[in-house]
Structures are given as C-alpha cells and as structure tokens.
C-alpha cells in the first residue's frame, strides 16, 4: 500500500505555496512532505491551508529540530502533538535528522554534526530507540551535510551512520544531495560511499540544490538540483531496485509554485526513466 501511495517525486510543502496548493487539488504532485514543527501549535490562514492540504493529499512528515543526538529531554507535549499529527496525516513513517540541534535547553536551529565515536553511536542509538517508542509510525533517520568532524573521529561518517541505523533498527531517509556535498567537501567518491551502506534500510530519498562558498560547498536548498545529483539519485534508485519515493526540498530562494512544479516534473522524468531500465542491484548495498 505504501508503495502505491508514495512513489515518484514529491515536494516539500512550504509556506509561500500553501494558499495556491490548497486551492488547486489537481496539482500533479504525488505526495508532499511537511515539517511538523511548522504545523504544530500554529494558527491563522496559512495554517488552515496547510491542514486542508494535509487532510486531502498524501503526506510524509519530516522533523527539523527534535535534536535526536542531543541530550535535552524530549518535549512531552510536542511528542504527543506529533503523534496526533502523524496519525492524522496517515504518513507511513516519520523522519528526523541524524544530528543535534539543541544544547542545555538552547535551540540553535541548525543541523549540527555528531562526533563519529563509539560513545556517540551508543548515545544516538539509545535516543533513536527511545524516540521510536514514542511514535505511532516507524522512524527514519536522515544523513546530514556536515562541514567538520566534531572532535577526534573513531570511525568515518559511513560507519557512524550504518552503526546507528543498525543499532537503532530504524529506516534510512537517504539524502543524495547531502552525500554529494559531503563527497565534495571531504573528497570521496559518493558511489563508493553508498555502496558500503545498508541500502536495504532506505525508505525514502531527499534531493536538493547546493552552493559553493569559497572552498566549502553548503547544502543551501536554495537552487535547482544539478545534473550530477540527479544522476546520483538515478544510480541510487537503480542500486536499490525499487521505486522508493524521492522528495525535492527547497527552503531558500523559493521560486513560484509553477517553477518548482516544472523542476519536480524534470526529476520525475529522470525517476521514471531509471526505473524503466533493468535494475543494477538487489538493493542490499
């Protein structure tokens, strides 16, 4: 059922487009992804439009600031509201970032990297298992873009992610743009990197644009997706051998809805094209 409802290329639901999307049921987008932090506890016209879309269209949920790898306690009220939202939307899973966002009660509103250490693996696995126990749907974790290792690493990023996913026994929201950006910044081959990973855990892909600032490439979500990232998406889909949903993210320099719909269509063509070809692998990394 999930495969039927969530395939193809969806779009991140963003505030500037809510009114237009709510008024346009025939938009051609197979599913949306919404950030619960932007819905829970909100009000007013945009909120009403968002709720109308969530109640009408297929929706996946993707958290921004729960601080999965942090140490601050969960906000119990928020988790209860989150659980209600997940049930209301009928999302088959809920995703969070493999990072921390708050320290000592202060939220930094940035996806900050966890140390690649055994201690951090143990801590993050315990937090992910605990969060999963509070959610009514399976939890996915997303690999982030990182710009520095935090402290002396005991393993590389790939090993860290794999150990957390396996230890917590959760699914993977694989952001192919993040892999691409990390490969640029740290000088590795993204395909070799992916080939090492537990791809059988992948339930969804993210794709987005990025920008280079000096020697650093930053995951801005503020530009069109470039061809090499689309090719990496196709390579990943072929390797997976199954039509997992892909979500186009755009958070900065958000264009008109029509422009974004056209970009989604371009990605959908690439998605359909690769899935129509004979598959390369059995999906077990």
């Amino acid at each position, binding site marked *: 059922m999930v495969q039927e409802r969530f395939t193809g290329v969806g779009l991140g639901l963003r505030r500037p487009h809510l009114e237009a999307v709510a008024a346009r049921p025939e938009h051609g987008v197979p599913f949306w992804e919404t950030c619960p932090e932007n819905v829970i506890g909100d*009000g*007013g*016209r945009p*909120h009403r439009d968002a709720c109308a879309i969530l109640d009408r269209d297929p929706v996946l949920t993707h958290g921004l600031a729960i601080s999965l790898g942090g140490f601050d306690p969960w906000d119990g009220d928020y988790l209860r509201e989150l659980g209600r939202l997940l049930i209301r939307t009928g999302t088959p899973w809920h995703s969070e970032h493999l990072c921390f966002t708050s320290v000592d009660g202060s939220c930094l509103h940035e996806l900050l990297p966890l140390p690649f250490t055994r201690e951090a693996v143990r801590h993050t696995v315990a937090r992910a298992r605990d969060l999963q126990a509070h959610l009514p749907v399976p939890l996915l974790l997303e690999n982030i873009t990182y710009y*520095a290792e935090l402290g*002396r690493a005991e393993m590389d990023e790939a090993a860290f992610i794999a150990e957390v996913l396996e230890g917590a026994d959760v699914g993977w929201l694989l952001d192919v743009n993040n892999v691409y950006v990390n490969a640029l910044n740290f000088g590795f081959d993204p395909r070799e990197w992916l080939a090492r990973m537990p791809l059988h855990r992948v339930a969804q892909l993210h794709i987005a644009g990025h920008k280079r600032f000096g020697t650093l490439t930053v995951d801005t979500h503020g530009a069109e997706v470039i061809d090499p990232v689309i090719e990496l998406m196709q390579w990943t889909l072929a390797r997976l051998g199954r039509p997992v949903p892909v979500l186009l993210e755009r958070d900065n320099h958000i264009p008109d809805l029509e422009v974004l719909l056209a970009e989604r269509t371009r990605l959908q063509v690439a998605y359909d094209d690769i899935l129509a070809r004979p598959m390369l692998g059995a999906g077990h990394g």
Partner: protein
Amino acid sequence: MAEASVLKLQQALAALVLDPEGATFEDDPAAFARSQGLPEKDAQSFQQFNEGLAAYRELARLSLVEPIEIMFPITKALLEREDAWEPCIEAFLQARCVASQHYRDIAPAFLGWLAETGWGQVTWPFLLELAHAEILEVLVARFPETECPSGLHRDPRPEDRLVLDPAAQVVSYRHAVHQVSEAAPIPESRLTHLLAYRDGDGRPQLMDLTPAAATLLVQAQTESLVEAAAALGLPDLVATMTLLEELRDRGAIAGYHGVS
C-alpha cells in the same frame, strides 16, 4: 555519565556558535577547544577542521538572526543608526533564550528577551513598545488555533460580558509605534490603543481604538456591558452595542455570555 565527552563536544560547538569568545576561534582553534575543557585530541581536531567549524558559527547565527531581522526591520533601523544593532544581537545570542524548536518562536523570544532584560530601554524608552508593535500582527496571525468557550451567543445584551476571539489582543502603547518607518523610526510620544485580530479568513487586521473603546473591550470581559459603559461615562448604550456587533462581525469578538 557515560556520554560525557559527546555532551562536552556539543557544548563546545554551541559556545563557538553563540558566545562572544567564538569570534576568536579562528585565531587559535585548538586554544578555543582547550578553553572549553576539551582534551588535546579534540583540540587538535578543532584545529584540523577549523574552517568547517567556523562555518557553523556563521550558519547557525544566520538561522537565529534572520527571522529577527525580518520581523523587526524598524527596530533594526533604529539601532543601526547608533551602531547598536550588532551589540543587541550579540547580547541576545549570548543569553541563549531560544528554547523552542519552532522556528517561528525565535522572533517572540527576542521580544521576550528585550522585555526581561530591559536592554536599550534607558536610551530608547519606546524600544520594547516598538518591537512589540512590529510583531503584533504576526503574533495574532499565528496564534494557535483555539476553541472558543461554549455557550456564547452572537448578539450582546446589556447584562452580558464579552469574550474576545482567542487570537485578538487589545494593546496600549505610550508611543505611536505603529506609525513609524525604517526611515523615521522614532515614534511620537502619544497614547495609542490598538485592536489586533484575525478576520473571518484568518488574516490579521489592525484597528485604531479610542481610549474609551479600548477600556470598554478590556473592562467588559470582567463586568457587564452596561456596568462597563457606565463606568466609562458612555451614555449611549445603543451606539456601544453597535460597535460591539461590528467587532463580532469582523471576527475580533467571539461572542457574549451572561453574568453567572
């Protein structure tokens, strides 16, 4: 605690992002790490990845400051005239009072910090009012959807009390802070009364109120309409009722209930 070193690293990165000492990070990244109590192996890692770590200071501060700059453009313009905007933001970030995981709560956290600390209000006595006025419509626009009390009726009777819509606010300022601009950010010293509410479409609206109307909307929530009007010396109850009906039709008043 088994994960003490992970927490210590996270605290060091938070300090790098938020604290004034973070600005000196690039001079000697390893020394900064040591000053945060990190062991030598981590200090060397801070040295090795100094460029990427410095990027986090920039990115995270941008995430926190951008909504404030968007929501408070006139406050920013006012303080920039005195080179005080950057010190204001520095003090706010150092106070670490953004606790909410909701991005929309960053700007209200800044307002709360201004109110709590009184920052700048000796120099600019209207600063808090100005900042409040700048965000008033947003606070009303995004007020969480809330159920109105049950049993309210639409048409006011003299013995009723009124119930404002949960999102509506009656505010009084000592300055005309709703009439300033980025070019002219200093308000006239004049008592100002405003009603901010959501209309039937859920969009924010702002209305100037007379002092009597503002007082009536506050008083009539705790005493009957006729008592509130009499206390204010409003002789024409019919005119008062007409005003209240209009405000109900606009969405500012949720309804009326009898005095129990």
